């Protein structure tokens, strides 16, 4: 479904991502992990088009999307949620999701100008907020609700686009243990319903629990990939990942 071939980018003299090849199959829930500074977010940005790669290409459903802008990729069903939640702060949670739910209409400015019908998008947005358990705050401005709500709203907003591939950048960061576990269960459920998901995550416990396959990134390159427990048991992964973690501790 998604394929990155020879992806690379450097910032100054540092090669943040160096010749990465990866494939994500339809229907899978893949976890992308790695120590701080391994290049996870950069790789995600290369895949989603936030950054243009200096080398390599990205294919989505067999089509080369390397130079396709982010909004076009989102329209194709290839959607990213940001690591730091980015709500439209002055809008309510419902309005935030409605803008995404009306993406068919907002795709072209002139069509958007001609359309004032809110009801279908509103119903869909409300259903999504209910689905994610945050309908009680639907009419609250985004700047006034806690992080857990915003994280869920961000996923609701992404789901409103009916994505076929959802890339979640650290969705569990900043959530407490219970919230993280509940959120992880939701991700599993979404995946079971047919959405292919790539999860970049620092919460190793949860990502090992829910991911069907792990990719470990180290120094901008894929160090290992495979079944989560097998991957985590590898010595080179523990040295790279946990070793670095231990040194930080």
């Amino acid at each position, binding site marked *: 479904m998604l394929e990155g071939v020879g992806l690379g980018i450097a910032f100054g003299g540092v090669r943040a991502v160096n010749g990465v090849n990866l494939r994500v199959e339809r229907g899978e829930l893949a976890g992308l992990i790695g120590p701080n500074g391994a290049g996870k977010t950069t790789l995600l940005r290369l895949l989603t088009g936030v950054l243009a790669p200096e080398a390599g290409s990205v294919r989505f459903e067999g089509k080369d999307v390397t130079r396709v802008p982010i909004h076009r990729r989102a329209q194709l069903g290839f959607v990213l949620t940001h690591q730091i939640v980015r709500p*439209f702060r002055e809008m309510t949670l419902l309005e935030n999701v409605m803008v995404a739910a009306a993406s068919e209409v907002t795709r072209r400015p002139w069509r958007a100008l001609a359309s004032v019908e809110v009801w279908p998008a509103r119903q869909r947005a409300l259903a999504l907020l209910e689905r994610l358990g945050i309908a009680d705050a639907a009419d609250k401005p985004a700047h006034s609700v806690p992080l857990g709500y915003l994280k869920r709203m961000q996923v609701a907003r992404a789901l409103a686009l009916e994505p076929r591939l959802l890339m979640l950048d650290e969705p569990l960061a900043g959530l407490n243990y219970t919230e993280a576990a509940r959120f992880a269960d939701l991700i599993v459920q979404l995946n079971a319903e047919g959405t292919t998901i790539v999860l970049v995550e620092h919460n190793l416990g949860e990502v090992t629990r829910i991911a069907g396959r792990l990719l470990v990134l180290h120094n901008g390159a894929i160090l290992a990939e495979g079944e989560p427990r097998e991957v985590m048991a590898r010595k080179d992964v523990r040295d790279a990942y946990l070793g670095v973690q231990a040194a930080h501790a």
Partner: protein
Amino acid sequence: MDYYLSVATFAGLNVILALSLNLISGFCGQVSLGHAAFYGLGAYAAALCSVAGLPMGVSVAVGMLVAGGFGIVTGFAALRVREDFLAIVTMGVGFLFLGAVRKQAWLGAEMGIAKIPSPLDKWGYAALAIGGAVAVLLLSLHVRRSWMGRAFGAVAQDEDAARSIGVDVSGYKIAAFFIGTAAAGLAGGIYAHMTQLVVPDAFNFVQSVTILAMVVVGGIGSTLGVVAGAVLLTLMPEMFRFINDYKLLVYGGLLLLVMRFSPEGLAGLVHRVTGRRLA
């Protein structure tokens, strides 16, 4: 009576200008400090057409298209720069317009274009300006209610988040600049025919700041607030003559006061007092 008609006409023109800037800055979040240039482009283009013998309606329409066309070009600049850098770029557009017009003999250079045919009487211009203001007001209210208004809001609040949910940020910015600058061109076309004379100084930086002050005082983003701001700032120099001599100083001071004490302008005050948000 003529005096009141003339004030009403200018109030109408200022409402058009302020609402058109509000579309770009208030709705879509794109700072513009050179709005008078598009007012001027509309005026000059309409004046040239009218002097060449075209009917007023066609001349004004050409003025709108010319202003809107240059607005699109400015919109492309807004794709590359944001916020304070965009403010500088749009200010540059204003100075570029003035600098270019002042040196062009075919545009009358410093003397401008005179003897523009004027087919209407004072009542006609007042009706046209107020009618234009009502049309731009209705357009603004419609834009706000439509999905374009919501998408503008998304672009204004977080461009990157808007992109990630499939909003064509570039398309919306260009659309905002086109609609806003074409409307300013409409005001320019009416102005040129009414005064029968266009000179570069009528579209200088002070004029851009005046339009901006109307938007900020009224409440950036609020259509009705901006209408009130434009009418208030048109009447103020008429009621207190001395303001006219110190326009830039008074408007600059007003901008500072509003930003400090009521950043949402008159619309914010109404909201605080009545608890109701103005459209």
